[in-house]
């Protein structure tokens, strides 16, 4: 896909963001219509931000990280410590958590991005687990060990305590800004480089590009989203669970991104909404087995619709004879995909450039 630039693009972009902002900001209301409760909206927004950042790494570059909990959890702990030991102000807490996670992202990115594919997944998983183990042992004096980090504060901004609604608006505003930035990244030459890394890193390297820098940049940007999400999580709920650093948090992130639809930006956010809705509302009907049902849904999605909900929607539209943009995320070089592309009627998608060999 070619990033859409030009004059007309900006008006369309602004309109799109406006619609997105309205949907996000009215979430406390419409969640209630579908059986949720308004307080869930903040949590959904935070996870959506986390998943959005994850898509910049997995969707654009195709690197599947199993260790994003490291950033979410580290930021959460840093925020928690700032609240507990310094002040209930959120601004220093945010700065403090970024100061902790940015160097961490650089180090982990430097180490893990030395390898690709499977190695990368395994290594990110391992290093995140190392942090989890360290938080429970070496740093247990600071982190509260197995009990998690408890604190008795209510987060404040400029001396004023934040209400639940105010925290929601902060999170929602961050998500809208985050989405706007992510869309700009996708439209930019930088974003194109990232997507080219997924398509064919070797060929890209032959053109003289220094891929390492781009990959680390994508990794750090994606980690930043995760850190802000971790920070917001503790602002929303002033308690840091050890689970935030655990691989299961990374696993949930992977599940929601894939169910929603990788490399679509909107997909992982839909996935996050779906998953939290499932966890908090559907659980009432299914009981403890909700995780099993979710796992089965996840496996079925991976097997039959690797493009997630967004792909499902596009397929349905094509079935109905409507124009839908073809985007097979995370299946760039699958055998047969090129033939499939060539056989496809050309008028369906004029913008899509065919891979040529």
């Amino acid at each position: 896909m070619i990033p859409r630039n030009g004059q007309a693009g900006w008006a369309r972009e602004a309109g799109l963001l406006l619609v997105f902002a309205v949907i996000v900001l009215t979430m406390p209301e419409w969640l209630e219509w579908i059986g949720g409760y308004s307080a869930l909206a903040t949590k959904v927004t935070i996870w959506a931000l986390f998943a959005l950042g994850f898509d910049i790494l997995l969707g654009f570059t195709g690197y599947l990280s199993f260790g994003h909990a490291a950033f979410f959890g580290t930021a959460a702990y840093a925020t928690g410590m700032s609240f507990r030991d310094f002040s209930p102000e959120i601004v220093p807490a945010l700065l403090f958590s970024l100061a902790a996670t940015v160097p961490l992202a650089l180090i982990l990115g430097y180490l893990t991005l030395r390898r690709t594919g499977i190695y990368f997944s395994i290594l990110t998983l391992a290093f995140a687990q190392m942090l989890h183990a360290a938080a429970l042992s070496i740093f247990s004096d600071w982190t509260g060990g197995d009990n998690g980090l408890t604190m008795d504060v209510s987060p404040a901004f400029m001396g004023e305590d934040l209400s639940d609604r105010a925290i929601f608006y902060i999170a929602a505003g961050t998500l809208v800004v985050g989405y706007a930035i992510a869309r700009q990244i996708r439209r930019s030459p930088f974003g194109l480089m990232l997507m080219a890394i997924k398509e064919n890193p070797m060929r890209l390297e032959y053109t003289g590009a220094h891929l390492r820098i781009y990959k680390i940049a994508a990794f750090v940007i994606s980690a930043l989203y995760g850190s802000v999400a971790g920070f917001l999580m503790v602002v929303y709920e002033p308690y840091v669970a050890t689970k935030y650093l655990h691989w299961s948090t990374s696993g949930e992130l992977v599940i929601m991104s894939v169910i929603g639809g990788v490399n679509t930006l909107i997909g992982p956010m839909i996935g996050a909404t779906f998953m939290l809705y499932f966890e908090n509302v559907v659980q009432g009907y299914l009981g403890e087995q909700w995780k099993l049902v979710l796992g089965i849904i996840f496996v079925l999605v991976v097997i039959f619709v690797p493009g997630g909900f967004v792909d499902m929607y596009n397929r349905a539209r094509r079935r109905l004879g409507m124009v839908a943009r073809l985007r097979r995320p995370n299946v760039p070089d699958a055998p047969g995909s090129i033939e499939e592309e060539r056989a496809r009627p050309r008028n369906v998608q004029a913008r899509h450039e065919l891979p040529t060999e």
Partner: protein
Amino acid sequence: MSDQLINALFLQVLTGLQIGAIYALIALGLTLIFGTLGVVNFAHGALYMLGSYFAVLLAKQIGFTATILVVPLLLFLLGILLERGLIQWFYARPHVDQILVTFGLAIVVEETLKWIFGANNIPFALPSWGLGIVRLHEWVPFLTGFVAFPKWRLILILVTLVTIAVVFLLLEFTRFGLVVRAAMRDTDMVSLLGVRVPRYFAMVFGLGSLIAGIAGTFGGPITQVTPGVGMEVLVPSFLVVVIGGMGSLPGALIAAVLIGLALSFTAEYSALQQIIVYLIAVVVLLVRPRGLMGKKGVFE
């Protein structure tokens, strides 16, 4: 060296071997499957866990001796079923999809076990011949005084050694092994030569699963039998594979022993023990990115 020191060192080495034994068995299956099929099996920990659960349940019904034979066989069949039913459709898909589907499978297994048996540990009653301790000073000449080691852990080390030896013989000296080793080098060429590679793939997955079953049966009493144990053993086993070099069987064994020893020798410093495995992985990765025994250009 004083006698005390020799005794202590000997015991720590044994403990290290015992810790490494479980990782070695799981990593052996992982690296075998990865080397041949090119699939990273995130569900391998779940297979280990299934082995433990089967063993606990069957031991009560048919006795432990029969269990030792039945569980690996069950896991072998399960592995073949899994490969034919699911994994084979993922060879042509990107690695990311393979990771995702096996990861999803691991979750489904974990949650199913949690649903049926609850989240608590199921006590694993050892058979009468596996109880108690072995007085090692009666057997090993250079030990003095009183040196003892739990019998079951020694059995685990022995079983691991035998399993590794059998797998080695199978791969080195049989037609099956010849084809598998050839397929590890170049799958396309082997199938062009008229070998029905898919059958061998199913067998290899079954074999990896069988080894996980052996590990689950003998390791279950040591690692506990809970629904979370699969992922707990999987992460270090992955590191063993990475440290040893992806797809290298001897590499996996060396790395497993290395990690086992590292864990046993840092046992007194619990903080260090928590992260030593990852530290080793970092160092190996920085100094030798393809792993200790990884071949140049293979899965780099």
